[in-house]
């Protein structure tokens, strides 16, 4: 028998020999799709969200009005009158096109905030979880401390200090949004990094970056997606709240939040001006929540909230 020397256990020099395994095995993905199809509420939410997103993208092109043009002869028209599908507001602007333009702003904010939170959270969380020990301890203490600071107060302070606008809102939400994500990712990484296939990859010569990117993250994508479906509605909610207290986007731009708070003022005489944006906001948040619930059930039955 040949002697096993220390060299036998060195990582392979030639990295080309090492082949990427696909992140998720095929049977697993098929299984997921099957499970998802069974969850009727999640399917329904997905359909509703798709419709809303299509309308947000294309809606403004369906009507001959734009979101900022004011028509003083036709203020506060009820829905359906003179070609205005959802009527007009107090300045005679077409609510239909304002609703979808506003949706672009609200969803844009929500999606960018979510992406930012995801990127920062994943990097931070996986570094902490992967290296463990002291690094993990310090990094997570920082997260704990930041989490204990009421995020919304910091958001408002930031908006007071900086000029209100889409960028500021994104920065404000982004600053606090990644914390939970980082915690979740870190917890998952701690579990996954002990798995055999990580060890196998290491033996095959993969470096840390490669292991994190190619092996760990693909395997914890479930909880990440679930957390994302939670950040999106909370960002939409947060934007609406800020608009209500007067820190939303500036006119002539509109967002769902500004439309709803304008609607509150007009509720008495023109309830449709509140009901239309109110229903769309609620429907969107509702769908994201239900979708999140559904995904959670499918992707990670152990996760409990």
């Amino acid at each position, binding site marked *: 028998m040949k002697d096993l020397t220390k060299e036998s256990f060195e990582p392979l020099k030639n990295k080309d020999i090492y082949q990427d395994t696909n992140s998720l095995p095929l049977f697993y993905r098929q299984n997921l799709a099957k499970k998802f199809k069974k969850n009727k509420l999640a399917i329904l939410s997905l359909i509703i969200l798709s419709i809303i997103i299509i309308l947000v993208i294309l809606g403004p092109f369906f009507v001959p009005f734009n979101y*900022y*043009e*004011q028509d*003083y*002869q036709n*203020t*506060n028209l009820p829905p359906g009158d003179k070609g205005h599908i959802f009527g007009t507001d*107090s*300045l*005679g602007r077409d609510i239909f096109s304002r609703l979808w333009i506003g949706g672009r702003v609200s969803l844009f904010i929500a999606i960018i905030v979510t992406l930012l939170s995801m990127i920062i959270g994943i990097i931070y969380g996986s570094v902490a979880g992967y290296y463990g020990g002291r690094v993990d301890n310090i990094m997570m203490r920082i997260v704990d401390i930041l989490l204990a600071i009421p995020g919304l107060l910091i958001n408002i302070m930031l908006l007071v200090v900086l000029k209100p606008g889409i960028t500021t809102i994104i920065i404000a939400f982004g600053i606090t949004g990644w914390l939970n994500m980082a915690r979740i990712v870190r917890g998952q990484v701690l579990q996954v990094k002990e798995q055999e296939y990580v060890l196998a990859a290491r033996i095959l010569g993969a470096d840390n970056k490669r292991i994190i990117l190619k092996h760990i993250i693909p395997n914890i994508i479930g909880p990440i997606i679930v957390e994302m479906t939670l950040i999106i509605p909370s960002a939409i909610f947060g934007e609406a709240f800020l608009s209500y207290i*007067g820190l939303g986007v*500036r*006119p*002539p731009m509109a967002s769902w939040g500004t439309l709803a708070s304008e609607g509150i*003022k*007009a509720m*008495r*005489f*023109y309830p449709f001006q509140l009901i239309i944006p109110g229903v769309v906001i609620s429907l969107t948040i509702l769908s994201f929540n239900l979708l999140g619930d559904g995904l959670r059930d499918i992707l990670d039955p152990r996760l409990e909230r």
Partner: protein
Amino acid sequence: MRKRFLILLIIAIFTFGLIVGCNNNGTSLPEQAEKILRIAQGSEPPALDPAKANDNISLQIGQALFEGLYRYHNGEYIEGMAKGEPEISEDGLVWIFHLKDSKWSDGKPVTAHDFEYGWKRLVDPETGSDSAYKMTEYVAGAMEFYQGEGSRDDVGVKAINDKTLEVRLVSNTPYFKEIISFGVFLPVREDIVEKYGDSFATKPENMVYNGPWVLTKWEHDVELEFEPNENYWNRAAVKLDRVVSPIISDYTTQVNMFETGDLHMTPLMGEFAVQYDKEGKAKFIEDGLSISVLLNKEGFPPFQNENIRKAFNLAVDRESFINNIYGLPAIPATNLINQAIRGVERPFREEFPGDYFSVFDPEKAKELLEKGLEELGLDKLPKLELMFLDGGASPIFAEFLQENYRKNLGAEVILTPISFEKRMEISMTKEFSALINPTGPDFDDPISVLEIWVKDHPYNEVNYNNLAFDKLISQAKTTQDIKKRMELMADAEKLLVEDMYIIPIMHNVMGYAISEGVSNLYLTPWCPDIDWMFGDLEITNN
């Protein structure tokens, strides 16, 4: 063991809830025999100290709690603490006021010394009053003292004896009586100010009153309560037993409370005004307030060009705003002096119509803009920042202007809402490009609108500088002949409008509704704004 602890905890939580829930049940309903008037205030009065009040609400309440020499009531200036008309010297520079015998709420007599102290305190630089300019303009020595150059003793206000006050003026000011009816020219008790220092007038017990009412409760941001001042010289004129003033910042809530009978009066704006008017329940009164847009050539250099300023004037579709959006029957303005202000015999606006330009002319506006840009050698206007005070109808008007300028001039306008505090700051720094400016006169004379636009006036926010204008104003200030004065001021107004640093938008009309059975309650075009001090109420049993 653990389970029992948990059950106890649950019980404790619920009991606590019940206690919290119930201890508020004790509020008793007001007795019906009392005449209690309920009118809301839009915000907490920031300062009831007469020297520090410079907002509508503080000044309004000041008129209930204190009384100056004269007061504005039901369309005229009536006697307050002064007995009869003042004695005026030949040259009009020395005014002597005689005081009535009257007492403060603590029983001490109101003396001319209280006036001397109160007025000097107004211009004392230590006080830091925002309203000092109302006195420094007119009273001899006041400006010097305020700017730290003169002494307190040289201020031309002096108590000759307990009942006689002598005031020396900078120049002959025929309308001085109207000026001092403004709510900062009040008597103040030196001993009380010294006793309470910084906390003077911050609590009902930290002040004494010489007006028709005393403050009995001041629960911050909740409610103010007033009761008649038994020592007031004209106690019989005070008919109500109590006035309750809840602080309701949301305007819609005020209307809602009016409808449920919780308030006796509500302002009406927008759609509410339209609906109430249809039902015949709305009242309208010519307001002192005028809306204009200030153009600052330093903040936005293209405004140095007259044609561009005029383009920004003619591009505003005032009538559409008033008829279709504003809801109140305001008057589109082609001039700066409000229809509520008196002229020689009739309202100034009837005597001098002042149609200085056509209300709306988008084609001409476009033409003027192109001409102006050519003169400046510009292809296109830079972005313009338009500031406006947040709240009320301002935001919607700002959006309206933004779209008018985009549509009619192709100008890009950025809107910046500002707070009241920021607005005060801009008065000092003059850092802005364009500003929506709702203002009203302090008293019933066109001079109150015009005088601030003379060179170097602290409130000349656009740095307007026209020698001819300044000359007309100083002539108007000293001319005794009222007809001549009005003509001078009409000429001055014309100059001011033609230079177009101030774009007149509209003269406001206030809408309001009052419950049946309430009488002698007025909205006034200027301070006190809501004149409830001598109101009355029929008691209905419901």
